[in-house]
């Protein structure tokens, strides 16, 4: 399989995130920077290094759905917000409030809300007025470090070291309600990804689980286990929901293909391939929003874009 190596970070790369146009990839690292890579003539070129925001590791990075904003979360407890000014991404604000390391950042589909989560066990929701961001809500629902957050439209999900999943919805009395789900992971939930009514969690218990999130419920559909013997740090659906990828501490990436639909209409996935991806832990995997290119990053300081030819 074809694979491009994107090498420039000086320390472990924590996350990568695709721009909605599928042409630009953002990566963030313990080297305190965010790098933007653009596909030019079938090659990824480094086009920007954002080093003016964080004073410690950058743990998470995410583009808004329209590509206008980029957000980052750092171990310095800061959430950075950049805006595209026509040619470059420029830092417009540093949001403070988290008391310790920020582990995840995510934009709601309409870019009205930015969520951040962290070791202080909280999820912060930020909104903006005239490009000025301020805190809308601080949610203290988890009992431990919150590792990941993901929006489905304007509903938010978070996963934590407390092994639970929590869903947040905006209520009529101007407050965010939440509901906790014990989804039978035996350990930390490291990542959440969502495709339509399908929710994927990956965990330190070496499994990934699929759930249906129709009708306000969270219904387990399938558990993928036995493929990785170490924590699964990241999961990502392909743009069409036909595949998903998992990245693990065992340095491998596994790919799963939808191979059936059961009598209730729920999909079933089976292993398509599994391969060694890096020298060390795979921290993040992310399918391109437009094709079957898979970006991944590792503790070995590298980023790779795999042309999976699915």
């Amino acid at each position, binding site marked *: 399989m074809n694979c491009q190596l994107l090498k420039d970070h000086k320390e472990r790369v924590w996350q990568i995130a695709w721009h909605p146009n599928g042409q630009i990839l953002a990566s963030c690292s313990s080297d305190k920077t965010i790098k933007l890579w653009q596909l030019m003539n079938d090659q990824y070129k480094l086009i920007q290094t954002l080093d003016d925001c964080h004073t410690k590791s950058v743990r998470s990075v995410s583009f808004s759905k329209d590509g206008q904003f980029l957000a980052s979360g750092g171990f310095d407890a800061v959430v950075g917000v950049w805006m595209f000014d026509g040619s470059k991404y420029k830092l417009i604000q540093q949001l403070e*409030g988290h008391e310790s390391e920020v582990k995840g950042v995510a934009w709601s589909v309409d870019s009205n809300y930015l969520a951040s989560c962290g070791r202080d066990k*909280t999820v912060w929701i930020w909104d903006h007025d005239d490009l000025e961001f301020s805190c809308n809500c601080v949610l203290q629902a988890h009992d431990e470090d919150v590792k990941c957050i993901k929006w489905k439209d304007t509903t938010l999900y978070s996963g934590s070291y407390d092994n639970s999943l929590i869903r947040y919805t905006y209520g009529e009395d101007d407050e965010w309600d939440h509901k906790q789900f014990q989804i039978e992971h035996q350990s930390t939930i490291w990542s959440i990804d969502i495709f339509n009514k399908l929710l994927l969690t990956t965990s330190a218990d070496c499994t990934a689980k699929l759930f249906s999130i129709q009708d306000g419920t969270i219904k387990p559909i399938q558990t993928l286990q036995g493929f990785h013997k170490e924590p699964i740090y990241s999961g990502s659906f392909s743009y069409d929901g036909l595949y998903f990828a998992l990245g693990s501490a065992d340095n491998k990436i596994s790919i799963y293909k939808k191979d059936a639909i059961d009598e209730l209409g729920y999909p079933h996935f089976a292993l398509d391939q599994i391969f060694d991806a890096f020298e060390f832990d795979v921290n993040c995997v992310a399918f391109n929003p437009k094709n079957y290119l898979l970006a991944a990053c590792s503790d070995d300081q590298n980023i790779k874009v795999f042309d999976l030819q699915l």
Partner: protein
Amino acid sequence: MFSSTIKISSVSDYIVPSQDCIKPLMKNVKLQLDDPSIQLKPNLIQNQNNVAKVSLQDCLACSGCVTTAETILIQTQSLEEFLQAIKKYQNPAIGISPQARASLSYVLNFTDSEMHSILQQIFQEMNVKLYDMTEYMKIAINNSIQEFKQTNITPLLCSECPGWVCYAEKTLDESIINHMSKVKSPQQIFGAIQKKNHDYIATIMPCYDKKLEAVRQENNEDINIVLSTREIEQLVKDYIQKLNIIPKQIELQTMAIYDQEYHNISSNNYVDYIIKSVMKPNWTVKQNIRKNKDFIEITIYNENMEQQSIFARVFGLKNIANLISQMKTKTCKYKYVEIMACPLGCLNGGGQIQIQKNTEKANDLIPKLKEIMISQKIQTDNQYQNEQNMYLTQFKHIKNENNFQW
């Protein structure tokens, strides 16, 4: 229980063996842990009689112990602890905050005056003298006005809320901490004044955070113990039944002012009194919602409708974060800010008797508690007087050097 600001700044969830306990019983634990052949034995800290002592203060200053400050606090400032202590002391006293009393009155279905009379009788039975906090709130307010008149610091931040204080000291640096009012809280003023008359002093407060305030080094144990409203609820119910108490109508004073639209008695009207001290004849006041109902701006206009100064009332962690953000970007135009950790203020404190979430929401309950707080009270003469005695404290940034985890 504790406010969101305390919960967010509490002790690390990941205990790293290499972190030193502030009173290490075992030195060099990290080096020894890797070697299974070494038997760990505590080498007691240098102390007479080979007795190791760790005080609550030590624990709160440290961030690497096996249990959180919250747990320690709850154990040492419990109702049981209070009941044991009052047997040992000759002359104990207890002060009750108006918010705590209103919560009890609401749940037990008495007027506030009746409730105070009942509590007086209950505590008398235990040989404890009950105080109303109004007199001490008056000193706190007067001191605040005096400090405000004399200061150059803008904004001046009310520091009566220990939830806010704890958050500020742990997460903010000196540039913000220097804005905090140094006036002691009514609880601490009560302790400072009454300690010459009583050998054990307790308070009943609407939150758990006040327990943290009582153990601060600067406060010299003037207050021995803080109980939250909810912790004494059952005791009060039991005694009412046991002693067959008949409530008397007594006259209670109040510092609560509520004649203007912007007045909010939930947290003792600090900003309202500051504004009052600044107002001149024919001046007007307008309030507006800055971001939500817990972030209110109050603007003073002179007789020509020219803006004179702006004040703010900020409740809840999310709004505190927004205020700090304004201060850090130097866009904060307020002269004084009443900051409280709990949304809706002290009436909604984490120690108040818990309302049933499905039958009554905080938004509905708080106005009822306000009614109780102000009904049948005599307005204290709250004209500002130049108090001779200033009851002051201090704050400092607490360095927090935890190892992080992935």
